[in-house]
């Protein structure tokens, strides 16, 4: 059994907006004589859009209609209809995520791009999907290496540390190629971002908007950015300004990092250099890439060449956000897709094989998700137990049913996400408790945390599995 799922990825970044389509191939890896085990076996990008500038209008807003037109045009060029896409993600990244109407645009666009195209945002997620989209995860696994990937875009540098295939840390700095903008023809400085302005003032450099941009004038700023990036990966003592430049958090100290890779728009100048006008794109991206190439970073670490540079994030959004649930799961029909469901996760202390303990813990946490007494749909998540006994499954089910009773009475579907392989038995137990006619989705082999949101798409592989996107929706 082989099946292909068509996925779309859209990245609305600080400077550019891109779109890709990719085929995600799933296959039943189990023999005919065991329960099915359906996994993703291949991801292939089948269409890459033009790279467009992200349209910004006055009042610091994103031009939603222009982006929609871009998306529509790319679908047409690719010969793909919206209803053909089975999954996908729109991610709004970098400085764009801080625009006033970011959330609004994101939600509108996710609906516009396809029925199960989910909205995502958040600097940690950006770091992860850029690294995965660039193939760094496989590289670190194949070479038993610890790699730090720096996805340097227009507004932010998203950092991810991958150790033997696993993401072990993320961080984000307000460093990017478009934090100083230069007029393309007359080369005057048009814009300096607030944090860079602060840096310039602290250093006492004479650089202002309106000035004629030259390489010599801007070199100190670019060099300082490089110093800060060096600090971020732990090869240089952190300066006082480092705390100012981090977006929400930096990387922890990782002594074992041996390899480095660069993605994002700035990466091309790092790997390929650039001839001619450094301000050709109207920013300092090329200067930053070249300065990085000359820096100690390129000497201290083994340089990894990523599979994607400027498209890393969009490929990650299109190919690496969709997961597949376990293959023995339980669901009742006709409620898919389920979108933007917040996750309520029990701690391991709360997760005892004890009906009232589970019920109490759930009831208490449910109130966190109520705003002004309004109940909303939530997904209960637990680790579950490896090789649970039949009676233990019944106890867990009873605890969940009791904890969620108000939600069940209110008619919400009961959504349960469990890590260990027990969802089908747990789902059946839940159904025997809440009745045949209540909607239940109980899936396993999916790991989520409090603060995550989950989207669940239409069943695939003859109904054996559900595509799932786990995401954060953090706007800063």
């Amino acid at each position, binding site marked *: 059994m082989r099946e292909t799922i068509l996925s779309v990825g859209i990245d609305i970044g600080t400077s550019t907006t891109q779109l890709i389509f990719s085929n995600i191939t799933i296959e039943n890896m189990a023999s005919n004589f065991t*329960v099915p085990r359906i996994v993703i076996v291949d991801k292939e990008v089948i269409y890459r859009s033009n790279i467009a500038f992200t349209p910004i209008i006055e009042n610091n807003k994103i031009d939603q209609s222009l982006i929609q037109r871009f998306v529509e045009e790319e679908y047409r060029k690719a010969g793909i209809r919206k209803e053909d896409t089975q999954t996908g993600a729109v991610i709004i990244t970098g400085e764009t995520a801080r625009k006033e109407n970011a959330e609004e645009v994101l939600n509108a666009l996710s609906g516009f791009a396809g029925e199960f195209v989910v909205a995502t945002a958040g600097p940690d997620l950006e770091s992860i999907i850029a690294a995965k989209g660039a193939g760094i995860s496989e590289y670190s696994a194949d070479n038993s290496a610890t790699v730090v990937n720096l996805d340097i875009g227009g507004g932010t540098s998203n950092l991810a540390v991958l150790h*033997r295939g696993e993401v072990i840390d993320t961080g984000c700095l307000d460093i990017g190629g478009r934090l100083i903008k230069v007029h393309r023809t007359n080369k005057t400085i048009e814009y300096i971002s607030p944090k860079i302005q602060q840096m310039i003032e602290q250093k006492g450099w004479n650089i202002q908007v309106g000035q004629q941009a030259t390489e010599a004038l801007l070199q100190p700023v670019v060099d300082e950015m490089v110093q800060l990036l060096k600090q971020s990966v732990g090869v240089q003592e952190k300066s006082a300004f480092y705390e100012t430049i981090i977006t929400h958090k930096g990387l922890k100290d990782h002594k074992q990092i041996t390899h480095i890779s660069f993605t994002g728009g700035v990466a091309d100048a790092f790997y390929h250099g650039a001839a001619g006008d450094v301000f050709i794109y109207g920013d300092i991206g090329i200067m930053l890439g070249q300065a990085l190439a000359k820096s100690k970073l390129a000497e201290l670490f083994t340089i990894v060449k990523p599979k994607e540079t400027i498209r890393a994030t969009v490929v990650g959004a299109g190919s690496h956000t969709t997961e597949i649930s376990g293959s*023995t799961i339980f669901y009742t029909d006709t409620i898919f897709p389920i979108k933007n469901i917040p996750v309520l996760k029990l701690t391991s202390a709360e997760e005892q094989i004890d009906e009232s303990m589970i019920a109490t813990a759930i009831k208490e946490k449910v109130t966190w998700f109520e705003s002004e007494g309004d109940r909303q749909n939530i997904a209960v998540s637990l680790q579950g137990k490896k*090789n649970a006994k039949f009676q233990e499954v019944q106890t867990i089910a009873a605890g969940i049913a009791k904890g969620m009773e108000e939600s069940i009475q209110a008619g919400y579907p009961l959504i349960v996400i469990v890590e260990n392989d027990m969802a089908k038995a747990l789902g059946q137990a839940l159904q025997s408790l809440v009745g045949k006619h209540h909607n239940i989705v109980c899936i396993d082999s999916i790991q989520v945390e409090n603060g995550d949101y989950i989207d669940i798409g239409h069943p695939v592989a003859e109904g054996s599995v559900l595509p799932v996107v786990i995401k954060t929706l953090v706007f800063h």
Partner: protein
Amino acid sequence: MVNETELKSLIENILQDMVGKQEQQPEQVQEEVVAQATAEATTTASTTCTVASDACLPDITKVDVKTELLVDEPYDQEGYLQMKQKTPARIGVGRAGARFKTATSVRFRADHAAAQDAVFSYVDEDFVKKNGFTAVETMCANKDEYITRPDFGRQFSEEMKQEIKAACGTPQVQIVIGDGLSSAAVEANIEDILPAIKQGLQMHNINVDNVLFVKHCRVPAMDVIGEVTNSDVVCLLIGERPGLVTAESMSAYIAYKPTVDMPEARRTVISNIHSGGTTPVEAGAHIADLIKKMLDKKASGLDLK
């Protein structure tokens, strides 16, 4: 007995040996170390004084083979442990010259002993009684005949057939448990898999009340039961030939209206049911769905696809 200093150095040695057991909590390691040290101390002691001791060596079969790395000074310990996580195969076992280490060969023999015992022992009669199964047996006189005469393990005497008919009647779905090549598999899994199947079937208003237990059972014995009871679906839960990774693996053979000498392709098989494979509760829930599908489509095996 050993003194404090000796005990301390013993603990230090063991702690060094335990590098690599990363998944354990520190307290747990401590406890184990103390237990082991005490045990070792007593062993040492017993050579000097002949008094028997209450101390006990730890159970070697409780060691998780997947996290135990016995190669001396491995080049990449973390990488090796990660490799071991990917396979149940006995790798990273180290060597004594070109031979196995003592610990791994004893463990290997322990696992082989468990496997052989699973084949050559019987399911406890009390287990069958306690669960209320109807006990029947094939034409095999004993285990030896069972393993050498597959033809006898698939036949019942006329009297047995009458007993089966009387006990089961003509249910829509007949569940059969067979010892097969692992009695251990039956005792380890049945009490979880059976209620899971029942719960799943109950949602479709299908009841399975009379469960048969067949001693000296080969898979085609289910075909005879199918013919005798005239059930729509027969589901046989039977012990698999044990391996060293587990002696408790069970398979389910399920067929729509099975008949003697039918093609094997008419059976649907779910194998590898045990705590480390497809867990018995998940397998049970899955089997319930499969049985429902067979009843709806009136087919099984390849015909069901």
